[in-house]
């Protein structure tokens, strides 16, 4: 899986959460919700410390491309702090791009460490209602 694929997968999840969150949690960003939903199973799998390490690394990688994330931090429990406090940027393309990059980097790390099969399974478990098959789209893109 290439970084393009992890970006596509992140884009898909963000779009799904953006649509789902319009009514339920209108004040939270889609990236925050994706991150929160991934936190629980990943903490269960890797421990809070394990998840924090992964998210911190993803954040560091994303910051290099999106300086708007400089104020964002990873809390002791692995939650993201500051993603929704980007202030005036919140609804701008830059903020959305920063969030998308962060999620893409997090998924990219998972793909790198545990591979496509297990990552997709994990994502599918978190969003069972989201009928997507990124595996196919990834393969098409690689071809």
């Amino acid at each position, binding site marked *: 899986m290439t970084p393009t694929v992890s970006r596509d997968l992140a884009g898909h999840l963000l779009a799904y959460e953006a649509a789902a969150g319009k009514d339920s949690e209108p004040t939270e960003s889609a990236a925050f919700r994706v991150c929160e939903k991934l936190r629980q199973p990943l903490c*269960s*799998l890797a421990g809070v410390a*394990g998840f924090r390490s992964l998210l911190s690394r993803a954040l560091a990688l994303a910051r290099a491309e999106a300086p708007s994330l400089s104020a964002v931090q990873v809390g002791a429990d692995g939650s993201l702090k500051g993603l929704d406090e980007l202030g005036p940027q919140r609804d701008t393309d830059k903020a959305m791009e920063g969030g998308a990059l962060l999620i893409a980097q997090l998924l990219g790390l998972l793909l790198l*460490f*545990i*591979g496509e*099969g*297990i990552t997709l399974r994990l994502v599918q478990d978190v969003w069972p209602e989201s009928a997507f098959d990124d595996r196919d789209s990834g393969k098409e893109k690689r071809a």
Partner: protein
Amino acid sequence: MSRQDKVTINQLPTGVPGLDEILGGGLPEFSFNIIAGAPGSGKTTLAHQIVFANATPERPALYFTILGEPAIKMLRYQQQYTFFDQAKLNNAVRFINLSQIVLEQDLNAVLEEIAKEVEKASPGIVVVDSFRTVVRKALSGSNELELQSFIQRLALLLTSWQATTFLVGEYVEGEIRDNPVFTVSDGLLWLYQSSDRNSILRKLQIVKLRGQGSVPGLHTFRITNGGLQAFSRTLGLGGQQRKMASTRRLSTGIPKLDAMLGGGIPEGDSVLVAGASGTGKSVLATQFIAEGIRQGDPGIVVVFEERPQEYAGRAGNFGLDLETPQHERKLEILYLRPLDLSVDETMREILDAVRKIGAKRLVIDSLAGFEMALAPSFRTEFRESLYRMITALTGIGVTILSTVEMDESFTEFPFSTYSISFLTDDIIRLRYVSIDGQLRKILVVIKMRGGKHSNDIREYEITSAGMVVSDDRLTGYQGLITGIPVRLNRPGQKEKPAREPKPKS
């Protein structure tokens, strides 16, 4: 209480080839077990194999990870094994990290968390990896009695919830004594890894197993991309009945040698063909196997010093076709060359091949090559291992012909370099002898457990048709077996002219 009233203990498969056999059928259901060993001995891989072999969505496996190998890395590496079924993840196999609870809270909190997950999932298998971490933590903050109580409650909980449990830990042997973990456990499976010169030896032992008989002793195992594979010391033939003794004689393919053997080799015997390099041991062995195939006895040839193609090619030089029977699955030539083999592993390969083609004849060419293919430490047990191997194979009715290379001595006449003559039923000794300015070859049947045999010392030649044994015994010389005989000048005895040697084509 009658036999029927006894509770039936179901056995679960380990997913490890050979291990169920060693365990006496499998893992006792609902047992509380420990998988112990040093780092890198294969504990986690074994636990994963058990998990993937048994977990179902209805009775999932819970794998609690604690401060050992990070779960992400564990998944990264374990998915490389062929037994790792990604489709079972999060569905039948669930990984739960307890590191934080262990670090920040006490044993009661750990037990509560495990209980919560167990009651939620109703698992069939529970693994705690590494349990050693839990014990260390416990001993740092609480007393030994608390630890014992924790282990007792954990065992009770998991057994009551009908889970078969595995506590994985890095222990050293001295810790067995007085350690409550070992006292409470029903099963204790110890994995060892050691290096010997340039070889790595892996062995496992069922130190303890309640409720069923396991095969005692150390068993070798190997870790491949399929995970662990174990090789029982009894080669899985422990409970097997010995085949009834046969009266059939097997032809060697050399009629005059058959006659010397009293009609051939008794079926199910182990024959040793001993001689110096170039005396024709392999030729005799090849003729024996080829004759078997001709008579409908499938055969196995185990070679260590040359590849199967070369072996078959050399047989072709003597007019023996070993290619066709290989295609027809009547012959298998096994080439075993790695330098860290165990006898049990070799035996497994041979037994699998024997079963696959229903072999009746087996040639081991040669014992020296076999010994060299073993890891150095196994060489010290070579004699004992050979005994087990020969007993196991002849027990299922296979007739074994082994070759052994001897250093040619002109002062003595040894039968083998391994002091294994007592292991074999029959011994054929080939040797060089210096006669009339020529280096000629003689053979003697030294012993036959199954009956009478010729006492003749016969001359033989290796020709393009293989081994050709002379009609009569070699007379007129004294001290033939020394290799430097003395001509007897009996009155009236005709002196045989020295023969011109026939070139081997």
